[in-house]
């Protein structure tokens, strides 16, 4: 009898524990709102785009339902003070983006007086969050997201990755943390110091993480325009630590990656790289004024200029965005809060810990312009970029 009672007690305890776990970890995704605005059903909904889209920035078929009926006429500031907001980061716990998101959420209270919870929604290198924000997230302004633009928003759209179910143009951009550009750095193991010397070398191997993104494109353009003989792209490293180590081991000779990240690695004292050798953008970066741009090293013909334009448009940085259809006053409040956040010295210090090479934040309005620039790039140029990547990665 006693054993039976004990077993039943154990079972009850187990259920309580699982219940607590479920409540703690699996709280329903959308946050509560005062007046639950029922989502109007799409009227003439064409089938959602499931087939791979052509690379052109053609918007997917199902647009987000237009703004929900606004709740009671309260000011946006009051609304955010009274309602908890949620920020989703499209990557796993523990990374740089995760930290940036959590820092943002923790300073939210100081700036707005309300609360903000940070959550992770990883999957499909950020596309899972982008799709969810477009299709499912409530456009009440209480749900916002953070993604690296080039890796998870513009990259997938331009380079025709399958599974894009969102329309870049329809998202509302709140701001981005900093601006950065790809740079090319060569291994300290190589004796070369000038472009002429590099041009004589055959078979230079340039590492990148992904094959269809801004860094791979930068590498391809560098090979093409600088005339590096038989150079090729080695793509597929699991991340920068593995790729940088490959340089240290002599497996590859150079990397093409976000200049700030390369600089940070040099700061760590590994001694794998020489200073950044060329910045793959139209203008020099304020963070590394000594590195020349591609245009300074070689003459770019007008017919090739759009390729560089494509590169600049795709620069990748952490962007905060909201689903389409958020009421305008809340959008403005969110943008103002973002700007205010960056005038907070403690917040900026926290951010600098994570992104040691700091340029400056981009406002929501300017970020929207950046995205529009991306969408203006012609299909011909995208195809050319793609063809160049293919040419040098085989």
């Amino acid at each position, binding site marked *: 009898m006693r054993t039976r009672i004990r077993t039943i007690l154990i079972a009850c305890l187990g259920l309580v524990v699982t219940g607590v776990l479920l409540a703690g970890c699996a709280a329903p995704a959308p946050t509560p709102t005062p007046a639950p605005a029922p989502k109007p059903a799409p009227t003439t909904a064409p089938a959602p785009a499931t087939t*791979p889209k052509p690379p052109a920035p053609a918007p997917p078929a199902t647009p987000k339902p237009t703004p929900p009926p606004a709740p009671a006429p309260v000011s946006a500031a009051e609304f955010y003070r009274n309602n908890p907001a949620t920020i989703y980061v499209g990557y796993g716990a523990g990374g740089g983006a995760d930290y940036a998101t959590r820092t943002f959420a923790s300073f939210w209270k100081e700036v707005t007086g309300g609360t903000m919870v940070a959550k992770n929604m990883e999957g499909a290198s950020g596309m899972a969050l982008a799709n969810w924000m477009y299709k499912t997230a409530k456009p009440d302004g209480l749900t916002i997201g953070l993604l690296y633009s080039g890796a998870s928003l513009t990259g997938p759209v331009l380079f025709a990755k399958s599974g894009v179910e969102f329309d870049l143009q329809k998202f509302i951009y709140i701001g981005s943390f900093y601006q950065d550009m790809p740079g090319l750095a060569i291994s300290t193991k190589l004796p070369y110091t000038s472009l002429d010397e590099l041009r004589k070398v055959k078979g230079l191997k340039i590492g990148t993480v992904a094959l269809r993104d801004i860094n791979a494109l930068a590498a391809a353009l560098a090979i093409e325009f600088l005339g590096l003989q038989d150079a090729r792209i080695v793509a597929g490293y699991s991340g920068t630590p593995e790729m940088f180590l490959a340089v240290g081991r002599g497996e590859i000779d150079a990397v093409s990656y976000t200049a700030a990240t390369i600089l940070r690695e040099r700061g760590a004292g590994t001694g794998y790289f020489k200073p950044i050798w060329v910045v793959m953008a139209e203008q020099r970066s304020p963070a590394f004024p000594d590195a020349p741009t591609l245009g300074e090293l070689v003459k770019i013909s007008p017919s090739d200029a759009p390729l560089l334009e494509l590169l600049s448009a795709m620069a990748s940085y952490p962007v905060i965005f909201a689903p389409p259809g958020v009421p305008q006053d809340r959008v403005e409040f969110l943008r103002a809060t973002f700007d205010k956040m960056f005038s907070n010295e403690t917040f900026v210090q926290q951010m600098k810990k994570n992104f040691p090479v700091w340029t400056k934040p981009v406002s929501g309005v300017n970020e929207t312009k950046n995205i529009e620039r991306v969408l203006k790039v012609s299909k011909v140029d995208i195809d050319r970029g793609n063809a160049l990547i293919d040419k040098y990665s085989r």
Partner: protein
Amino acid sequence: MAVEAFLQALQNFRDLDLLLFMFVGSIIGIVFGLIPAIGSLTAMALIIPFTFMMPPMNAIPLLLALTSGAITAGSITSILLNIPGTGVNVATLIDGFPMNQKGQAGRALGAALVSSGMGGVFSVFLAFAIIPLVLPMVMALRSADMVFVILLGITFIGVLGTGSTLKGLISGGIGLLISFIGYQASTGASRFTFGANYLYDGIPLLPVILGIFGLPEMITLAAKGGAIAKAGANVKGVRDIFEGGKDVFRHFFLWMRSTILGYIIGIVPGVGASVAQFVAYGQARQTSRHPQKFGTGTVEGVIAPESANNAVQGGALLTMLALGIPGSPDTAILLGALLLMNVIPGPQMMTAQLDLSLTLLLIVIGANIIAASVCLILAPNLAKVAYIPGRILVPLVIAIIFIGAYVHRESLNDVVVTIAFGIVGLAMRNFGFSRPSLLLGLILGTLFEHYLFLALAASGPLFFVRPISLVLIVISIAAIFQGQIRGLFGNRFRRQAKTYETKG
């Protein structure tokens, strides 16, 4: 300088806060490791937000100890319920669960806990001993060599479990095929995803583990009634646990070999405990005098993987500190946390900041000892799970399985995958196909392909013409034909012995 650093590390280690957080971390790790399916990864993800607000020297011991605790406790559910507590305790269930069914749960638990605790501690001493060698060793390896390290793990695909080698190979092959699903970074192509975003990252490991090992066992138990342990087993409680502990010393050389193996594989960045457990299990079987007993519940099959998976931690920690390359998803999270606390991994961790590295290693020792002791105290009671009637155990465990599958990523699709693999697992169980082989294929397939593509892209089709690669190839071939080689020599010895006999 090393002595100074060590003394400084000891000084750091005596800090009361540090010890407190180390203890708390171990306990949290044990709790999460004990709940099947909610392993250290989930625990880490839940704890990380809190650590942002803590001083580094509180947060780091907490996170480090948590991993040690979870890996140590993870073996318990492998043995008791056939559900690995973490992804690195899979090889343990191959023999651990059959031992449980034979009524030897206590002995298996004792062996697992003692070997993992000792493995964890010993690996740290190994780490102390070879700190100056770590960097040169790691820098000497290239993607090409990694291909063969992983291949060595894959060669054991046919020998996991009790079924025939052919069935093992078939299962492993299916696992490899499943591992190909998803986005391939080197080619930029999504394979077998049918346009579904869910499949973009490949089939997630956790639901597969839960489905393939957990569900079939529970379904079978529900169908046959009774409890996990077969009736009539002779249970001696605490004495069983002691017996298990003594087993580790009876197989001391096996334990030592597995620990060293685990440690070395741990140093290799990016491979980690998921490979080490299989290699350790495989070598235990290949070098055993009675390989046919493996898979039916032999204690060596528990000792080998358990000592290796904890030993990985010491090795992986050093590599991570020196190079910033995480060896497992857990260490990846840990690495992120370290960065935020201004502990920047780099070669200076082996020189200027050696004291900090040594402090972290001391924490691993402490956490392993705490985790193993606490689990050993709990073990006699935990072992009784084997005697809980199925009608109570089954609903409870199935509920936990589904919660675990869901909570990990808050995805209902993961629950569907769990059910699907539950059906696959049931079929495999009933037709005698090795489920660990499938998992080995699934885990190692992704890694193998990753490095193969890199090696091909960086060094061309003749990438393996390198001294380290060639040595690894020879070892792999020796591992495959080990039986034949031994047979050859064995015959010669026997023949010689016979000649002596006839002469005599």
